[in-house]
């Protein structure tokens, strides 16, 4: 199918034609996507659309990790699953959805929750991920994943949602320069202390929007690492700013982009006095257990 002279399989020129037309993507961008390996942690309300749109865009390899199985009460927002896959592992259900949409995408699945015992193995040893998506539903896992991503040099596209609201940040981007999850949220919340721990309602398309935005940001990160394109956007040259996008959708739809502090010198994982290391993770620091009810989530928000 592939002529040796073509940088992409012939069929890809048709399949991705509308995306290849974008000067910011083009052939180098599409090749970067095809070569990219993206790990998606959590196949719930965020991971469902993020996975589908990254598969659609032609990301070559997707890794899916989640220990939950599909329940009927997931289906109002977790659109990668379906009624006839209730009871299956979410990663298997999502893999089936990816295969239906784009059979050219390679999928690897882990039928387990991310935890201190597997995080370094999954993030680093079993596959060389170019990017990680934090689509989890639990604060402990968010801290753990971010810590491990800093230690293994991965950028994380992180999102979350509850009720009518959502939050999105790209962490550790560029690798070693951008703030991590702890730089943004330095104080680990304790169980019961923060609005949002425990049971809260959620509107399906609210978490959906955040997951689709993760796919946009993921594609931009991957494509930005491709060889330079012909057209470079002219933008005011300013100091690199780190931002969080906030969605508030009730009563009126409102997005805002807020400016973050950046990397924090006092951060225990990327600051000057590092107290979180591969070793503290592997020996299972109980800090992750304390936060908001501990690891792992069985609620399946």
């Amino acid at each position, binding site marked *: 199918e592939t002529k040796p002279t073509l940088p992409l399989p012939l069929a890809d020129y048709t399949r991705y034609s509308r995306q290849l037309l974008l000067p910011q993507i083009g052939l180098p961008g599409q090749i970067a996507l095809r070569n990219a390996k993206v790990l998606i942690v*959590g196949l*719930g*309300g*965020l*991971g469902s659309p993020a996975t589908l749109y990254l598969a659609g865009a032609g990301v070559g390899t997707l890794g899916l990790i989640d220990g939950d199985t599909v329940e009927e009460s997931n289906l109002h927002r977790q659109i990668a699953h379906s009624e006839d896959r209730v009871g299956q592992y979410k990663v298997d259900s999502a893999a089936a959805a990816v295969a239906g949409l784009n059979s050219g995408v390679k999928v690897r699945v882990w039928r387990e929750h991310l935890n201190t015992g597997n995080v370094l193995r999954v993030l680093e040893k079993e596959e060389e991920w170019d990017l990680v998506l*934090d*689509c*989890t*539903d*639990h*604060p402990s896992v*968010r801290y753990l994943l971010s810590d491990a991503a800093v230690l293994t040099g991965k950028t994380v596209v992180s*999102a*979350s*949602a*509850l*009720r009518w*609201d*959502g*939050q999105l940040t790209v962490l550790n981007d560029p690798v070693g320069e951008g703030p991590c999850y702890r730089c*943004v*949220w*330095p*104080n*680990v*919340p*304790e169980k019961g*202390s*923060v*609005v*949002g*721990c425990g049971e*809260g309602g*959620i509107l399906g398309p609210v*978490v959906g929007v955040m997951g689709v935005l993760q796919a946009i940001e993921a594609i931009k990160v991957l494509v930005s690492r491709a060889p330079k394109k012909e057209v470079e956007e002219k933008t005011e040259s300013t100091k690199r700013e780190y931002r*969080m996008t*906030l969605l*508030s959708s009730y*009563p009126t739809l409102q997005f*805002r*982009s*807020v*400016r*973050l*502090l950046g990397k924090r010198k006092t951060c225990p994982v990327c600051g000057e006095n590092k107290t979180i290391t591969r070793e503290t993770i592997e020996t299972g620091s109980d800090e992750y257990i304390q936060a*908001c009810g501990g690891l792992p989530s069985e609620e399946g*928000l």
Partner: protein
Amino acid sequence: MSKPVTVTLEFSGGLETVFNNIKSRKVTIPAPEDGKTLDMGYVVKYLADNLLKGNRDMFVLADKIRPGILVLINDADWELEGEEEYEPKDGDSLLFVSTLHGG
């Protein structure tokens, strides 16, 4: 001695539920009675004492902003502006965002 300031107060990420479901409101913060400076430290305590309707622990711990809440002054992290020592000006936007964890 400080003068009162009128700011736009905004809550996001669920914090509005302990502030009587205010999403956005113009509020005039009176000058501290003890003649101290009207800074963000004072504003936080003033809000907790006067506008908060729900569980105080959701907003402050010992009169300090509690972990898991991001404070933004004109859409920038308040640590960029001097944190509790920043003295708000008329027209400033003060946004309090609670971390969300759902996914």
